Every structure is written in structure tokens, then in C-alpha cells.
């Protein structure tokens, strides 16, 4: 197979890959936006940050 045909085939694969990725992220973004728009507002879960001044030298 000539090098030109191989390059063209690889280029098509790259284009399909890039377009697939763009399509995936586009759909994901739209779904996130729709979820945010139409779902009820939920309180974020409680989060406890790691204390900075805590004595971290105790053994497990």
C-alpha cells in the first residue's frame, strides 16, 4: 500500500477520534446543563477539611 494511502487512512482515523471526543464532551456538557437547570437544588454534602494545626504526628 502506498504511503499516501496509509497517511490518508490514518488521517481519517484521527479525524474520527477528534470528532468523537468533541461530540462526547458536547453531549456531556449539555446533559450537565440540563440536569442543573431542571433538577431540584440539593444541599451540598457536609465537608470536614483536614485541620492544618492538628498534630499529625500520632501513629495510625
Amino acid at each position: 500500500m502506498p504511503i499516501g494511502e496509509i497517511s490518508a487512512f490514518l488521517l481519517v482515523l484521527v479525524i474520527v477520534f477528534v470528532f468523537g471526543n468533541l461530540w462526547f464532551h458536547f453531549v456531556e456538557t449539555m446533559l450537565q446543563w440540563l440536569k442543573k437547570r431542571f433538577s431540584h437544588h440539593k444541599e451540598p454534602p457536609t465537608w470536614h477539611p483536614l485541620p492544618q494545626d492538628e498534630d499529625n504526628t500520632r501513629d495510625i
Partner: protein
Amino acid sequence: MGFFGKLFKGPEIDMEKSNANAKKMRVLFNQTVEDGDNYRLIFGYTEDVSRFNYGFVHGSKTKIGNLIVGWNEASQTIVVVPTVPDLSGCGDPAYYCRSEILKAYRNKYPTDAFVIYPDKKGYIGINAYDWLEDEKLFVYVSQAEELTAFTDFFMNRFAAK
């Protein structure tokens, strides 16, 4: 050790980093769980796999949730605290007392996760390994001894049908 010796030996555990993370896990656990020192700890994680089909693009997505898992032999209780790989914080604990759960068993396929059904509505599958290298996804901690102890506790004193 020569270059090839090091190459074939595989990845080595940074014990300094592992110990520091083990201490952070203990601090986080103790600040959210009452009498936290009565629990032994391991790191575990949950995997949420979902399939998607967006026209000509389809596949699966995996969400990883990091967990600090504590267990108390005397009260036969497992406590699960959600956290993040850098251990900068944690969420509220969930308690699974053997006398209150519906069932618990160790899965065989697709992963050998520790599965707990607190009731008929939901379940939690805890995956645990002695060490996971990927710091971006998992807490970097070496825990071979703790994992053996937890497996023994779960299989022999916690599992219920």
C-alpha cells in the same frame, strides 16, 4: 543494584509519603467519628460504572470515590468516611453495624469488593488493595497488614447472609 535490577524490580513504595497519608487518614477519621481511636483503618474506594450511548459515540464511564474505612472488632461495626485522594477533607461517616445490616459478602466478579447491603434499597461495594500507585485517583498508602486484618474481620466476623 544496577540499572536493569532497578528496572525489573518494579515500582517501590515511598513509605514516608505512605506514613504521612496514614496519619492524615487517622486525623480525618477521628474528627468525624466518635471514639475513632477504637477503629482500625484502611483505605478503600468505590467504583461507579455507567454506560453511555451518544449516537455514534458509546462506551462506559467510571467514577472513583475514595473512602477511609474503619472497623471495630468489638462492636462489629464498619464505618465508611468519603474522602479525596489528597486527603484535604472528608465527608460525613456512614455506619454499618453487623446487627443492623441486611447482608454482607465478598464479591467474586467483576471485582473482589467487600459488599454491604444496609437495607434493600442500596448497597456499598468497597474495593481495597495493599497499595495503589496512582496518586491522582487513589490515596497513596501502603496497607498490606491492615488489609489482611480487615479481610479476616470481614469474612469471619462481619459477613452475613
